[in-house]
C-alpha cells in the first residue's frame, strides 16, 4: 500500500514538474532572448517583462506543487526510489510534452539524449 502511495507521489511529481517546465519554457520564449533584452533595455526591464507574463506565475506554482509532492513522496517511499524514478521519468515526459505543447522538433538525437540521461540517472541511484 505504501508502494502505491509512493508511485502516486512519483506520478504527481512528474506531472507537476513537466507542467512547470513547459509553462516556464513557453513564458521565456514569449519574453524573448533575455541577453538581447538586457543589452537594449537593462535588467529591470527584463525582470518586469518576466514577472508580468501570466504563464510564468503558473509555471512557478506547478514547480511548487512538484516540490511539495516530492516532500510527501519522500515520507512514503525510499529516497532511492522516489528521486531517480521521478527525475528520469520527468526527462522522458518533458520530451513528449515539449513536442506536443511547445512544438519543439524532437528528433532522433534528442530522443536518444533524453533516454540516455534518464537511464543514467536510474543507474546512478542504483
Amino acid at each position, binding site marked *: 500500500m505504501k508502494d502505491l502511495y509512493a508511485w502516486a507521489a512519483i506520478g504527481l511529481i512528474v506531472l507537476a514538474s513537466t507542467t512547470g*517546465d*513547459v509553462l*516556464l*519554457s513557453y513564458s*521565456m*520564449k*514569449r*519574453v*524573448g*532572448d*533575455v*541577453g*538581447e*533584452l538586457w543589452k*537594449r*533595455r537593462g535588467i529591470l526591464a527584463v525582470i518586469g*517583462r*518576466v514577472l508580468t507574463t501570466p504563464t510564468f506565475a503558473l509555471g512557478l506554482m506547478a514547480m511548487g506543487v512538484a516540490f511539495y509532492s516530492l516532500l510527501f513522496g519522500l515520507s512514503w517511499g525510499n529516497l532511492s526510489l522516489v528521486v531517480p524514478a521521478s527525475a528520469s521519468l520527468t*526527462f522522458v515526459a*518533458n*520530451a513528449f510534452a*515539449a*513536442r506536443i505543447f*511547445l*512544438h*519543439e*522538433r*524532437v*528528433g532522433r*538525437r*534528442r530522443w*536518444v*539524449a*533524453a*533516454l*540516455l*540521461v534518464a*537511464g*543514467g*540517472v*536510474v*543507474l*546512478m*541511484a*542504483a
Partner: protein
Amino acid sequence: MTLRKYLVLAGITIFSTAGDSLLARGMKELGNVNVSLHNLSSLLLAVAHPWVTAGILFLLAFFACYMSALSWADLTYVLPATSLAYVLVALVGHFRLHEVISATRWLGIALIAAGVGFVAAGPSVTPDHHRESTRDAARDAVSQEAKL
C-alpha cells in the same frame, strides 16, 4: 551558440550543484530539527543558517540562468545539456568527500555524459514559423514599447 550561451549552460550546472550541496550541508548541521509547515519558526530559522542562505542564493542564480537559457533554447535541449550536474555531484562526492563510486554508478555517469554529448552536438532551438528567432522577439518587444 555563442560563448556567452555556453557559459549560461555551465552556470545552470554549477549553480544547481553548489546550491544543492550547500543546502544539504546546512540541513545536516541543523540536525534533526523538525522542519515542517507545523513548525514555522524552525523553518524560518533554517533559512537564516549561513549554509542554507548560501544554498538559496546559489539556487536563485541557477534559476536566473535556467530562465535565460529557456529564453533562447528549446526545453528538450536545455534539460539534457545541463544534466551534467548529476555527474558533477558524484565527482564532488568522490574526490572531495572520498565516497566510493560503484561500477553501476560509473556506467550511469557514462550514459549521462553520452546523452549530453548527443544533444549538445545538435541544434539548440527549433526554427519558429511565426518569428525568425527569439532574438527578433526581443527586438519586437523593444520596438513595441518604444511606440507606447
